[in-house]
C-alpha cells in the first residue's frame, strides 16, 4: 500500500446506493482539506445503520502512513459531500 495519504468518501444507503470518490489528500481543494480535518477530529456519529430504514450516510476512510482512519457520519460539508459521483 502506498504511503501517499488518500481519502475515500462513500455515500451509502437510500435507494440509489453507493457513490464513491477516492483521491489523494494532496489533491483536495483547501476547503475540502479543512473539512476533512474537521471530520477526522470528530468521532463517528451514532451508527448510521441504526437510524432505521435506509437513510443515506457517509463513510470517510483515510489511508496512508499508519492505521487507516474511518469515520461514519450522517452529514458532510459540501466541499466533501459533492465529491462522490456516479460513473457516467
Amino acid at each position, binding site marked *: 500500500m502506498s504511503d501517499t495519504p488518500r481519502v475515500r468518501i462513500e455515500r451509502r*444507503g*437510500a*435507494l*440509489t446506493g453507493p457513490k464513491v470518490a477516492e483521491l489523494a489528500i494532496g489533491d483536495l481543494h483547501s476547503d475540502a482539506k479543512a473539512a476533512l480535518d474537521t471530520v477526522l477530529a470528530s*468521532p463517528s456519529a451514532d451508527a448510521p445503520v441504526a437510524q432505521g430504514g435506509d437513510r443515506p450516510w457517509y463513510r470517510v476512510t483515510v489511508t496512508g502512513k499508519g492505521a487507516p482512519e474511518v469515520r461514519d457520519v450522517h452529514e458532510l460539508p459540501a466541499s466533501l459531500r459533492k465529491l462522490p459521483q*456516479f460513473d*457516467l
Partner: protein
Amino acid sequence: MAQDCTHAHGRAHQCFIISPDLLKKLSQAKGNSRALKRTLQSTWLVTSNMRKGRETARLSAISQKTSQFRRDIDSPPPEIFMYDCQKHHSIPGRPIADPAKSTDAGVRIAYQTTKDVAKFYKDVLGRSSGDGRGIDLVSSMHYREFEDEDYDNAFWDGRQMVYGDGDGQVFKEFYNSPDVIAHELTHGVTQFESHLAYEGESGALNEHISDMVGAVFNQKVKGLTADKPEGWLIGAAIMGAKSAAAGKTCLRDMASPGNSHCLSPQPSTYNGLDPTADVHINSGIPNLAFCKFAQAIGGNSWEMPLNLWYRASIGGHLKANATILDFANATLAHAHAMAVDPAALKSAWRAVAVPL
C-alpha cells in the same frame, strides 16, 4: 499489521487488527477455500457489529414489534398521508390536505401509487400496510437535504417515505417510478417483520426484498410476465437525460446485475460477494436468484414466486446477521411448506453460486 480504528458513539476507539479493506481482499482472493471466505466475511460482520452498538437497541425495539406470520384479512386499509417538504430538509413538512386533488402532479402520482402498493400488499399477500395492522403510510415529497442542492435520492427513515425531485440530469423525480415507491414502502414491512441488520449480507437481503417487491409490483402494474426483461429493471423511470445519454437505462437490473446499462452494477454470484460493500451491491446476488426462479416458474411473478419469497422473509425467523445462504434455506423450507417443487428453486440459487 495495520489496525483499523473507528470512533463510535463518542466512546473510546475500538480497534481491529485486520482492516475491512484487508478482509475484503482476503475474502475475494483466488485460492482461498469457500470456508475461509465465509470465515473472513463473518469476522467482518462481527467487527462491524461491535462498532455499531446502537444496533442492539434497534433490534430490541423491532423484536417487540415482531410477530409471527399473519394474514390480517380483517385489518382496515392504511390511511395515506402526504406532506410537502417544499425543498427543505424538515420532515415531514407541510401537510397536503387532499393529495388526490392536488395541483401538484407529483403529489397525485405518489399518493395514487402508494395507495396501489398498499392494495397490492393486501390483495396479493394479504397484508395490511407496513405493520400488518393498517399503520398509516406517510410520505414526504420534494425533500432536499440542503436548500441549494437538488436531492438525488429516496429513502425510508424508519417511520416514513421521503422522495427527492432529482437533479434532472442523473435522476428525474423519484416518485414517478412505481418500483421506487414499492421499494421504500417495503423497507417499512421489513422493519416490522425481520431482525435484518442493515449491513453486510443481512443488509443486502433487506435491500433485495425491497428491490424484489418493487420490481414485481412494477410488473403487475404494467402487466408484464416474468420473461419480460423490462420488468426486472429498478429505477428505469428515474433515469435522467445525462444517465440515458451514457447508456444507463436503470439503477439496477435484477435479471442482469452486472450489466453496463446499470448505473450501479452489482455482482451476479455469491463468489463475488464483497463483505465490506454497501448493502446495495451484494443485493444483486439474491435479486438474480429470484429473477431466475420466477422465470423458471413462468407467468406472473406476483403469484407463487412472490408469495414464497415473502413468506421466507417475514415472521421474525431470520437472524440479525442472516446470510444469503440462510435466506436461501428459508425459501427452501417454505417451498416444502407450500408444496412447491424445490427443483427450480435450488437451480435458481445454485445459478448464483449459493450452495443450496
